[in-house]
């Protein structure tokens, strides 16, 4: 059988040259105990826990939300019945932009991309009949926003003391930087609010994960796996340095409940190696850079999500396969929680069918493929260990690049980060046009006409008016004097350097709305426009 030339250089998706064969030679400098080690022990290369999936499967947790809290509750119940084991709120656009639904700036967008939540009652509705004491929730909140306080207040009402409540707040500067949203304060304000929450939780809600450093959205802008880890670690450093500067909470308490959120993209082995490298790097940052010896402080507990940017509009069922491989990579990479997208990600919000298939993908891997039989099955592979090392080395270089810019906040302010995104976007398009990257059914094997239809999901158009009515009623029925006082207090605290979170909680308890909270941020810090030039 003829074989083609093997002289052509071959690269991973992030540009690492890949040899045709890896052998013991390639890993001979690895010290097993120092560099690979045991799962559950530094440097955590093989996994953050000793028994991993043999002890407990990863959480099946999908970012979901649409139309109204009632509709979302119904969907969450279905997901739970189908076998999902954790919740994750996809909030409506009004949440990240900090506007109320009757704000004319947002009324055209309300209800289309997530669930609108404006009060503790709304949060309660979303979780009606669901076991939040058993299933933790991820909140993709606006920084200093309403969702986290609302969740805490709901938990308290249900008899769960704050020091027991479990879940995660997004709270990540890195992911926030990768979107282009209006009505935002500048990155240094973001950092302030974020660190306030982490500080507060370290003392009052120690089981909560008050931050999930998140490189998912940045990755979807087209940056590479190397840049993804680099930006993620640089963000961690920014947060810890800020607490170091403040000196209010011992660093080991501050970092104890750091969580992470990453993408899983197409290059199967690179993505697995990425997770292993990231675990090792976090441990080194925590232990070596910050001198924190407690090994439980250096565990990179990660939620991964299949990369939406790889899911095509054309022949959407192909995405079942892409997502299957991405989720498998997440499992072989040792993730704690996984979101498989709906195959219709590039078509609409997930239909019931797409949701079912996403959950089934995770269940099939967990229960039929036996890949959970052993911990870190790829450990020792000459290729995977080499790739892990290469990714780590290149990611450190990238962290340094960001440090040279003055850290993550400075790099965002100066526009450097956005220029990185933009180059990545444009370079990807060139590769696509040149065929250097293949997207089956799109730039290769493209069919002239659609081979099949898939069901479409449309959010309920009546819901916008209902939400506007609701918030008007909320404002009428609440104790407006109490709200005014709480907002005034929040304003004072914001302008000082005190921790804002208690005042935010009080305001939310008094039924302040997202728009009102957002307004205070912007009045104190000024609005900031993302430095994106076309």
């Amino acid at each position, binding site marked *: 059988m003829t074989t083609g030339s093997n002289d052509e250089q071959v690269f991973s998706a992030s540009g690492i040259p890949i040899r045709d064969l890896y052998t013991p030679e390639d890993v001979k400098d690895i010290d097993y105990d120092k560099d690979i080690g045991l799962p559950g022990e530094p440097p955590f290369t093989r996994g953050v826990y000793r028994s991993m999936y043999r002890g407990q499967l990863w959480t099946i947790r999908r970012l979901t939300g649409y139309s109204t809290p009632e509709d979302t509750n119904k969907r969450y119940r279905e997901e739970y019945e189908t076998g999902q084991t954790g919740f994750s709120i996809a909030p409506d656009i009004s949440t990240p932009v900090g506007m109320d639904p009757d704000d004319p*700036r*947002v009324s*055209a967008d309300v209800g289309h991309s997530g669930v609108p939540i404006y009060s503790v009652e709304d949060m309660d509705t979303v979780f009606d009949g669901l076991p939040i004491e058993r299933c933790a929730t991820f909140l993709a909140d606006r920084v200093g926003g309403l969702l986290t306080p609302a969740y805490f207040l709901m938990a308290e009402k249900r008899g769960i003391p704050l020091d027991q409540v479990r879940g995660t707040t997004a709270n990540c500067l890195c992911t926030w930087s990768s*979107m282009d949203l209006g009505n935002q304060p500048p990155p240094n304000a973001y950092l302030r609010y974020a660190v306030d929450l982490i500080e507060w939780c370290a003392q009052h809600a120690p089981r909560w994960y008050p931050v999930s450093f998140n490189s998912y959205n940045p990755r979807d802008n087209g940056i590479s796996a190397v840049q993804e880890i680099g930006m993620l670690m640089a963000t961690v450093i920014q947060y810890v340095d800020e607490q170091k500067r403040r000196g209010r909470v011992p660093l080991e308490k501050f970092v104890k409940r750091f969580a992470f959120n990453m993408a899983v993209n197409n290059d199967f082995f690179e993505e697995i190696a990425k997770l292993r490298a990231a675990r090792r790097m976090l441990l080194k940052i925590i232990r070596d850079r910050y001198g924190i010896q407690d090994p439980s402080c250096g565990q990179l507990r990660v939620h991964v999500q299949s990369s939406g*940017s790889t899911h*095509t509009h054309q022949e959407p069922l192909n995405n079942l396969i892409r997502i299957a491989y991405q989720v498998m990579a997440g499992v072989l990479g040792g993730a704690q929680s996984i979101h498989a997208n709906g195959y219709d990600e*590039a*078509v609409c919000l997930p239909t019931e069918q797409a949701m079912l298939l996403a959950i089934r993908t995770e269940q099939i891997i967990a229960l039929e493929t036996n890949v959970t039989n052993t911990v870190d099955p790829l450990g020792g592979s000459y290729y995977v260990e080499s790739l892990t090392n290469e990714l780590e080395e290149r990611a450190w270089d990238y962290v340094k690049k960001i440090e040279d810019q003055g850290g993550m906040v400075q790099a965002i302010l100066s526009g450097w980060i956005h220029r990185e995104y*933009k180059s990545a976007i444009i370079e990807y398009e060139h590769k696509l046009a040149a065929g250097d990257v293949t997207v089956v059914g799109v730039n290769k094997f493209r069919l002239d006409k659609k081979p099949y239809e898939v069901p479409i999901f449309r959010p309920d158009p009546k819901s916008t008016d209902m939400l506007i009515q609701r918030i008007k009623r909320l404002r009428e029925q609440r104790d407006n004097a109490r709200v005014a006082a709480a907002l005034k207090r929040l304003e004072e605290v914001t302008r000082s350097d005190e921790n804002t979170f208690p005042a935010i909680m009080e305001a939310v308890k008094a039924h302040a709305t997202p728009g009102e909270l957002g307004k205070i941020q912007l009045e104190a810090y000024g609005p900031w426009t993302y430095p994106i030039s076309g």
Partner: protein
Amino acid sequence: MDEKKIKILMAKPGLEGHWRGIIAVSAAFRDAGFEVVYGGHMRPPEIGATASQEDVDIVGLSILSSNYTRLVSETIKELKDRGKGDVMVLLGGIIYEEDFPALKDMGVAGVFVTGTPMEDIVEFVRKATS
């Protein structure tokens, strides 16, 4: 080829924050020799005003949430109200095929869903403006 370059205003009339598509298409237009005014987030009135001020030939809208019908019709109205009804309107993003006829009736000249090759969009503009 001494004629005035084709001028295109690229904007996102909604609030959702995905900017990868609009950047990619803007870059492709620039590479193709068109003049691009990058508007980023602009509500329909602002799009109308800018289109008029800049005297553009084409307005390109990028929308990845399902509220495009309303945003597009508002934008087209703003353009017409300012006497810019002759400006070509293009729409890109996540659009349901069953809505294409209604969008065309509204006045959208071309709809480009994600996964459309850049060269197809450029070619469309060339053909439509020749």
